[in-house]
């Protein structure tokens, strides 16, 4: 069954060096290539022999019913989980088993399903933590605020302010994150991820629990990020309408297996996908 889906996928992937989307954006080479990933927790198989790739500049969605292993997949990419089998290739190189912080330093930023922000810090401080890997001057110079350290801080601060403007959260810059409503927290988390100027941005259910208006805002931001910064984005989302509108290609998972992969239209008409979402009629 998987072969069938794969064959289906390859039909629109005969262009080895990327493709052009319907709205005219150019999608480049493979940036992240996941090869036969298998992840087990004790006896439970969370991901079973899944392969797919993420191309430079595209918005790639991972969808599937609850418990399909989508978040586990994202955690494999961001280094929070280490798969038992399979290889992760990034920028044409096989990635050794890295710690999450090392993955982050490679230019892969992420947000979490349940929001992981520094609740005690202000919005500005939270976003500033995204710049930690851009601070190179010594700790002594930083303590006493000397020349290079001071310039560096100013430059980082400027970048952070740009992102804050971009995501329209200027009015809450100095507010401690703990006091913010859910929707805004999600946006601050996106801001912090963007502050790291990632090549690949992983979003775990960026629109979960939002109302229609907030969802529209978030969709707009995701498209703008992709468009203006050229950031490659992989996201997990439950809202089908959103997924179909946003993404260039979609991976569908069910019970830890890949059951579909292709453009939104292809996936929508895939029988297995329809069965996984709506159930198979009894015969």
């Amino acid at each position: 069954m998987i072969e069938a889906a794969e064959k289906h996928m390859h039909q629109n992937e005969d262009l080895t060096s990327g493709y052009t989307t319907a709205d005219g954006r150019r999608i480049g080479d493979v940036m992240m290539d996941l090869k036969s990933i298998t992840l087990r927790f004790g006896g439970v198989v969370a991901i079973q022999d899944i392969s797919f790739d993420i191309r430079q500049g595209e918005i790639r969605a991972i969808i599937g019913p609850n418990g399909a292993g989508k978040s586990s997949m994202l955690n494999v990419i961001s280094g929070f989980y280490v798969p038992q089998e399979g290889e992760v290739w990034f920028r044409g190189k096989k990635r050794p088993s890295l710690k999450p912080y090392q993955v982050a330093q490679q230019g892969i930023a992420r947000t979490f399903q349940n929001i992981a922000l520094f609740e005690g810090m202000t919005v500005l401080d939270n976003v500033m933590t995204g710049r930690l890997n851009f601070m190179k001057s010594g700790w002594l110079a930083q303590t006493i605020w000397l020349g290079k350290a001071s310039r560096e801080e100013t430059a980082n601060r400027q970048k952070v302010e740009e992102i804050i403007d971009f995501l329209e959260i200027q009015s809450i810059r100095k507010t401690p994150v703990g006091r913010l409503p859910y929707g805004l927290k999600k946006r601050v988390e996106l801001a912090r991820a963007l502050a790291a100027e990632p090549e690949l941005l992983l979003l775990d259910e960026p629109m979960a629990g939002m109302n229609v208006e907030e969802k529209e805002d978030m969709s707009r931001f995701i498209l703008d990020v992709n468009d203006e910064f050229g950031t490659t984005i992989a996201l997990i989302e439950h809202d089908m309408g959103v997924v179909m509108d946003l993404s260039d290609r979609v991976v569908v998972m069910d019970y830890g297996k890949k059951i579909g992969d292709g453009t939104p239209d292809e996936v929508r008409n895939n029988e297995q996908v329809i069965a996984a979402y709506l159930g198979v009629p009894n015969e």
Partner: protein
Amino acid sequence: MSADFLYGIEVILNGLMAGVMYALVALGFVLIFKASGIFNFAQGVMALFAALTLVGIMEGQVPFSHLINEVFGTEVHHFGWHVPALLAIAITLFVMVAFAWAVQKFLFKHLVGQEPIILFMATIGLAYFLEGFGDLMWGSNIKTLNLGLPQGGSRVIEDMTAKLGGDDFYGFFIDKLDIVATGVAIVLVLSLICFSQFTKQGRAMRAVADDHQAALSVGISLNFIWVLVWSLAGLVALVAGVMWGAKSGVQFSLSLIALKALPVLMLGGFTSIPGAIVGGLIIGVGEKLFEYLIGPMVGGATENWFAYVLALAFLVFRPQGLFGEKIIERV
């Protein structure tokens, strides 16, 4: 001004200076607790170990000399040199950083994600291990720490303040060592605050204290931060060990200063640096003043228990401490 009133002020001044020392010890606890959720029972023994190491290095003692002599049948005790104080402090600091690294590498790295009570038990084990290790390394005899710090009451302050009162008042008696200790503690606390506010590592430290998962996702190595906070706690332990050691000798009882930090933590909150400072000052002044005013009525020696009773009363009304974060679960 009446002499009693002036003596009261003197008591408060001495209390404040004692309080700064309590705050210093409490700070070591707060640093580690904030960043890793570990209540480090070994903080007091770390102070003892740091002081022992400092004395040993200064006097050119051969570490593990007893063991070496037993095994090899030699008779080495001293290298025969004396290391200048500043250099010895630098070497001791290096030893404390190495200790921090070893603790993380061989102990807590294997206990990530364990229950707090398990981590706490691990630090109790660590405390007794370090105590024995210190004895093995430097011997268990009582040592004097002679850094050349000024000792005894300050004549200058006494003379200057003598005129404030009448004939029955002889001026404030303030120990010079206490003044130095207070100065050092204040400098240390201020630089720790600057470090945690303005540097990349400090920012990362606060990030880890707040949320481990989020910290990982922005590229912070938890392992590095934990070694860093244990090193800082080692630095704090060194300063506390030096100051208390200079005052009352380097011996086992030095490790009991950790017990003095407990009521400070209950008062100030386990997660707050300003809390540790204010808590330390309140306990310091409180116990000295209580001893001065109420002590004579109840037969004295109130300093042994006053801090704990105060902390206990505090717990009833404000369990999270003065500055601790109140945890409100949204339902």
